[in-house]
């Protein structure tokens, strides 16, 4: 594990993992509502990739994705130590990276050094019981800044994503 992510006890919390299991999120299925939300996120911030991620104990999986290709899309997720979203599970707050090549938490992450990720903004998906499941996020291949309006747009979409996730049958 590199310094790309410091895996915290919060990521491995049995109560958090039980919440993920109860919602059936370790086996993501096609969901038109979540898909529309990641489309809105990517389009709204003019970035190529939008995701709803679920951070498991050793990997993240994509509950909805727009713009992924190659092995990442085929794998349906990544090891957790490469997950930018895992930082929000730890902090319970938004995680924003404007230039990944110089950000201390991700600059050595293979998604940056080998896969070309340069910017990221993610909002935690928090259940009514307070468990952080993952993030609604956007990813880009060029560095950029994120305004408060950008983050507010993502916060609104994340809120709608959680409403959807908690309202459907597992």
């Amino acid at each position, binding site marked *: 594990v590199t310094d790309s992510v410091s895996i915290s006890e919060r990521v*491995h919390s*049995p109560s958090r993992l039980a919440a993920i299991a109860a919602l059936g999120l*370790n086996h993501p299925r096609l969901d038109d509502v979540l898909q529309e939300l990641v489309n809105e996120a990517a389009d709204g911030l003019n970035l190529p990739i939008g995701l709803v991620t679920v951070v498991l104990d050793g990997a993240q999986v994509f509950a909805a994705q727009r713009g992924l290709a190659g092995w990442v899309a*085929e794998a349906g997720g990544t*090891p957790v130590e490469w997950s930018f979203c895992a930082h929000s599970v730890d902090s319970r707050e938004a995680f924003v990276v404007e230039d990944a090549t110089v950000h201390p938490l991700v600059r050595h992450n293979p998604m940056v*050094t*080998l896969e070309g990720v340069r910017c990221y903004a993610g909002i935690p998906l928090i259940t009514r019981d307070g468990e952080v499941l993952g993030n609604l996020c956007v990813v880009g291949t060029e560095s950029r800044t994120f305004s408060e309006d950008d983050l507010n747009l993502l916060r609104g979409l994340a809120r709608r994503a959680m409403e959807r996730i908690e309202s459907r049958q597992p």
Partner: protein
Amino acid sequence: MHTAVPGYGLAPPSKDDALAFLARGVGADEAASVWVRACRESGVPVDARDLGPEPMMKVSEWLSRQTGVVGVIGSSLVVRLRTYRLLTANRGGANRD
């Protein structure tokens, strides 16, 4: 012994890794019994000292179909193994079973 994918530093999860993940999630005693059952149901030798990526995938897929935290841990193992397999294939197939 399966080495890490160059540049990515990702090695496939081993039997010991899986047991450690399970023990952290459900406790050591239950982890051991779940592992034995997973191996038997997957047709994988229970007392093998270690398992390569293909038998590990069989066991992990069985785990991923279980309910609760065990299923989440199984899904994690599947993603890690799938990532390893895809990255290895992209690099010419070294280290495959």
